[in-house]
Structure formats: C-alpha cells, structure tokens
C-alpha cells in the first residue's frame, strides 16, 4: 500500500510542473485567445467551426504584424479546450484558461456549457462569447458574458412571420430533443408562430434517438401543415425530413434553430423532393460580403473553411473582441475590455452593420446582432437566402 501512496504523491507532484509550465512566457507581447466548445462527441462540428473562426480572426491580425495594445504589438494565438458539451467541462476549461492567464474566450457553444461557465468565468475575470440558445445564455448578473449571435427570441418572430407570408400554413409542429438544447429553442419558435396566428405545438424526443419513425407518426397524427425541426442536430433533422417525405407528408418543412440544410437536402434526395423548405441562416449567407469570407479564409489559412456557418459569427466576434482589447489597451483587465466592447460601434468587414441587442430578452444588451438570413426552397426550387432584419421590436 505504501507504494500506492508513493504513486499518488508522484502523480500529484508530477502534475504541478506540467500545469505551471504552461504559464505564459512573458517575453514580448503575446495574446492568447481561448476557445471553449465541444471538440468530441456529437456536437464536435460546432466546436471546430468556432475554433476556425477564432483562428481566422487571430491570423488576420497577425498578418498586419500583431494587435496594437498600448505601445506594443501583440501576437495573437488561439488555444482550445474540449468542454464535451457539459457544464463541468466548460467550468474546468475556464479554470484551465485562467491558469494560463487567458482572459478572453470565444465560446462556449451549448446551453449546458454556457450554464456551467458563467459563474466561473465571472469569478476568474474572463470574457466569454457564447453561442448558446439558452433562455439565460447571458444575464445581467454576469456582465462579462457576451452572446456571439442573436438567439431565437430575436430571430424567431420575424422568421415565423416571413414563413407564414411565404407559405401560408395555419398549423405547425416544432420538434426538438428533450434537453435544454432542444426545449429552449423549440418553445420560443412555437411561441413566435402562435404570435402570428399559427396553431403551433411542440414535440420532444429523447436525445440519441436514431430512428424517428414513431415520432414522425405522432406528428402526422396531428395533421399539421408544416413541421419545424428547430434545433435538432443536423443528422436527426435530416432523418426526420426524409422519414416525413417517405411517409407522404407534403407540407412545408422548416428549420428555425440550427445548421444542417445541406444534410437535409441530401437525405431527402435533392431539392425537388424536398419541395417547400425554409431555414434560418445565422448570417445572411448570400450577401457578397459573407460569401467573400470563405475565399478570404482559404487564402489566409491555406485550407478551406469548415462547412459550418457557425464560423462566421466567431470571426465577427473575434474581430470585435480584438478591436476592444486594442482600444482598452490591456490584455489582462477583462472588465475594461468589456467596457470597450460595449462602446465600440458594431461594424464588421464582411457582415456589415450590426448592433448590441438583448436588453428586452435577457435584461442585458450584450448580444452581438447582425442581420440573419432566411433560406427558401419553394416548390422544389432553391430561391436563396433572404436577409432578415432582426432589429429588436422596441
């Protein structure tokens, strides 16, 4: 047993230099941008997209010789941490970054992660830019927590209205997984549909379901005009769309909540078979500015960008964050940078003009809003992505 003790002590002792070694070498000015998100498990692609966006933002600045902070020019690098889509993973990540003196974090991605990281990051003095669609993704009591893109409460009302105008349906079923990643979006979607006079109901399935035939049958029993796959993961949404069409459902399929349009089109067997379909694009992807970003990424990074639009707001928020750091003139004081962030004009090279929103929904104006897009396929023909202004109904 004594050897057991020795082993423990050795392990503990061995752990310290490893961790402490990681502390930043303070020669020159080096700015580390953290990225927290799922890099394993079913939500990996979102974490990867976020990391790519942050890396692109860093590379842009480095190309110009570094970020001017006070008198120095800082080289920006990105470090990432796999938070596994869990609250404790994200909290551990925030602490890991704190130990490396990383004060600015792009991410986390999911609702559990946002829940887990808020108090810890606040305590550690770290700014976060979460993409979670949770109803409490940002809160007044956590002034360092920012939201990277507009949430369902912002875009669902205008999109629901636009969808009703385009397709004229009277009833809809919103379907999503039964955890926070599903309920916090589908319930907001349903509310938005109801607000424009559509009869909306919600269906939640067990996360991890692979065969949706029974859920589809249940939805069809309600005989709706349309089905909204909300924030179901891309693979789930694709399977549902396919099984809906196989079951003879000819109504409109919508997707207000997450990416995955390509998968859905593929699963159903092409745009013609999909018929009528509308979806949220978190940015207006057909804009020339946005389209240019993919080219710029390839040119600067030497490889194509990940095929996931979540990268775009990550680029925008990295740029804005870096700008704020420069303006605040500090790479340590998160509160000062947050102050600068709030005061900066929201304007992005590729996305155009945006604004800080969120007061009405979260009670704090720290949501980075750019116009979103509504993609449309009408009668089996791709119509493209229309820009939708989400300016908060004040």
């Amino acid at each position: 047993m004594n050897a057991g003790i020795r082993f423990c002590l050795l392990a503990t002792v061995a752990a310290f230099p490893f961790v402490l070694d990681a502390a930043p070498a303070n020669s020159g000015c080096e700015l580390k941008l953290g990225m927290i998100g799922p890099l394993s498990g079913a939500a990996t692609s979102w974490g990867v997209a976020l990391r790519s966006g942050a890396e692109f933002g860093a590379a842009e600045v480095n190309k110009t010789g570094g970020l001017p902070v006070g008198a120095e020019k800082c080289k920006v690098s990105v470090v990432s941490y796999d938070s596994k889509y869990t609250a404790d993973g994200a909290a551990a990540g925030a602490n890991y970054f704190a130990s490396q003196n990383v004060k600015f974090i792009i991410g986390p991605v999911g609702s559990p992660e946002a829940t887990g990281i808020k108090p810890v990051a606040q305590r550690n003095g770290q700014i976060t830019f979460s993409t979670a669609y949770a109803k409490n993704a940002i809160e007044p009591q956590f002034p360092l927590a920012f939201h990277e893109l507009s949430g369902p409460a912002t875009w669902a009302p205008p999109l629901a209205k636009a969808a009703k105008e385009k397709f004229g349906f009277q009833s809809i079923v919103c379907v999503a997984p039964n955890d926070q990643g599903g309920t916090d979006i589908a319930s907001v979607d349903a509310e938005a549909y109801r607000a424009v006079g559509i009869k909306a109901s919600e269906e939640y399935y067990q996360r991890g379901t692979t065969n949706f035939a029974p859920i589809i049958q249940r939805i069809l029993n309600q005989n709706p005009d349309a089905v909204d796959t909300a924030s179901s993961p891309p693979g789930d949404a694709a399977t549902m769309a396919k099984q809906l069409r196989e079951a003879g459902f000819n109504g409109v399929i919508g997707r207000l909540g997450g990416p995955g349009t390509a998968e859905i089109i593929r699963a159903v067997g092409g745009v013609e078979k999909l018929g009528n379909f509308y979806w949220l694009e978190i940015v207006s992807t057909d804009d020339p500015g946005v389209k240019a970003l993919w080219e710029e990424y390839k040119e600067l990074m030497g490889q194509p960008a990940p095929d996931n639009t979540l990268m775009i707001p990550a680029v925008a928020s990295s740029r804005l964050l870096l700008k704020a750091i420069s303006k605040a003139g500090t790479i340590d004081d998160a509160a000062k940078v947050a102050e600068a962030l709030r005061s900066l004009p929201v304007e992005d090279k590729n996305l155009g003009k945006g604004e800080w929103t969120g007061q009405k929904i979260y009670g704090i104006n720290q949501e980075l809003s750019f116009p979103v897009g509504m993609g449309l396929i009408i009668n089996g023909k791709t119509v493209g992505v229309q820009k939708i202004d989400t300016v908060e109904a004040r």
Partner: protein
Amino acid sequence: MTGRRRGRLVGAAEITALLLCVVAFATPWLTHNLFVLSVINQILIATMAAYSVHVMLRMNLLSFAVPAFMAMGGFAGALVAKHGGTNVLLVGGVSFLVPALIALPLGILILRLRGVYFVLVTYIFSEILQLLLFETPHLTGGSNGISGIPAATFLAQSFSSSAAVLQIAAGLALVATVVTAALCQWCEQPFAAIDENETLAASLGLVIWRFKALGFVVAAGLAGLAGLSLVLMLLTAHPSSFSPLSSVNYITYAIVGGRASILGPAVGSALLVFAGNIFSSQGEYSPGFFGVLILLVVFIARGGITGAVHTLWSRRRKQPASLAASTKLQDLA
C-alpha cells in the same frame, strides 16, 4: 494472525485516503493556480462517485446508478440551499439522506438481480431519472436545471471562491472516505463472502439482502455527496451534469484504480481526471488518448493500479511466506 495483518494493511490504505483529503483541503495554501484547484476539485468529486461504485463492487455488483443518485443528492442540496438554508452541514446531510432513503425501496426491488441484469437495471434507472428531471420542470427546473444557487455557508462564513468550493469538496470527500472505510471495514467479511460465493454465504446463515441493501443505501448517499459537490462547484444543478453514460466514467475510475482497497477509487480518479483535463486541451482527439490510457492500464496493471502495486509490493517483500500470499489473494478477490 491473518486478520491482524489484514487489519493493519487496510488501515494504511484508509489513512492514506484520509490524508489525501487533508492535502486536498490544504491546496489553496500551496497554490493559487486555478487549473490545479479545478482539477483537484474534480478529482474529489470523481473520488466520491467512485466510492459509490467501489462499495457495490465489493459485493460483486456493478452499479450504473451513480449519476442518478448524484442527481438526487445534487438537486436536493440545491433546493435546500435555495429555499431552506445554506449551512453546509444541512445541505450535505440532505444530499446524503435523500438518495439513501430512495435507494432503500429501490434496492428491495432490484437487489435480487445479479451480474449484467443488475448492470442494465441500474443503467435504466439512470435513464429514467434523467427523463424525470426533464418531466418535472416545476420542481427541478426541467431541462434548464436550477441556477442561482447561493454559496454554502458554515459558521457565518460563505464559501464562494474556487478555493473555498474546493475546501468544501475536500470536507465532503473526507466524510465520504470515513463512511466508505467504516462500512467496508465493518462489513468486510460479509461483503467478501457475498462477492465470492453468495449461495454458500446464505446457506451459512448470512442475511444477504440486509448487507446488499445497506451497501446500496450507503453507496447512494456517497453518490449524493458527489452530486452536491458537483453542484456547488458549478453553482448550478443541471441535468447534463448527470448523464446516464457518465456512469461509465465513475466505473472506469473505480476499476482502473483497483477494487482491492479504498485507495483504488482515489487513485483511479486522480489519474484519469487529471489525464482527461490534460487531454481536453488536445481538442477532438482527447477521447482517443483516454481510450489508449484505459487499454494500457488494464493491460499492464491487472487488478487495477492499487492491485498491481500491491502484488508487486508483497512479491518483493515476502517471497516465501504463504501469509502474504493469502492476504494478497484476498485483497485482489
């Protein structure tokens, strides 16, 4: 003679485990590195959860119900802290007792199952509890969980910093270690007999269900303490913290550490949680590294880390004595 030797050996393991808790309690004075504090906090939580697995393993029962009991303890503690009182003794007591009390009737139903049947039923129980959390939004906050939990207090002192949260975890882990050690010591012979040959034990008059129920109830309480500790670390009781598949992690900690002694859960948790945190900064390949580590440990260290160390130790020290052999075999059983 054998008994005395065994007693002394087990004692050493227990004292070491207790000392580790004390060291963990003292870490805030040794370092302010937040990552170190956070990792040690996670290790403490994992150790308590692995104790829960360990107690059941002593009776050759593999329990996947740990996340379920953690959730009960965590949510019960959160509710009490929010609406009742934040005294750490009160909150800790509730988070031990609630799962323990629920485990009693549940145990009577499922403890006659053995082997993989027990594994499956406990796993299903974890799934059911997760779904119940989703389906009871008024009590548990549904899929959003309970947030805004006030920091725990003790003697007018509030524990809100990372260091203080770690110290609470260390205190709870100390209690968990004492409870586990006391139970395993007191029930050593019955547990070992149930583990090896239930039929024989029963025919000698051992009231098996009584010990199984006792073990199950205590294991549930230990998991409850782990759940509370997790909730206090995150200041949130969230269903995603208690996913049914996370039971595989706790089982892995307990088995990789070795089921021979109470140090097993602590050693397994320390190694694997530490490694998991380091791997997490390696991005999407972290599960792969973790998998390789498990394969290596199982392949090299038969009987878990403590088991392998123990085997080496007794082989080196007492080559000829059948005494050492007898204790070794007993411990590795």
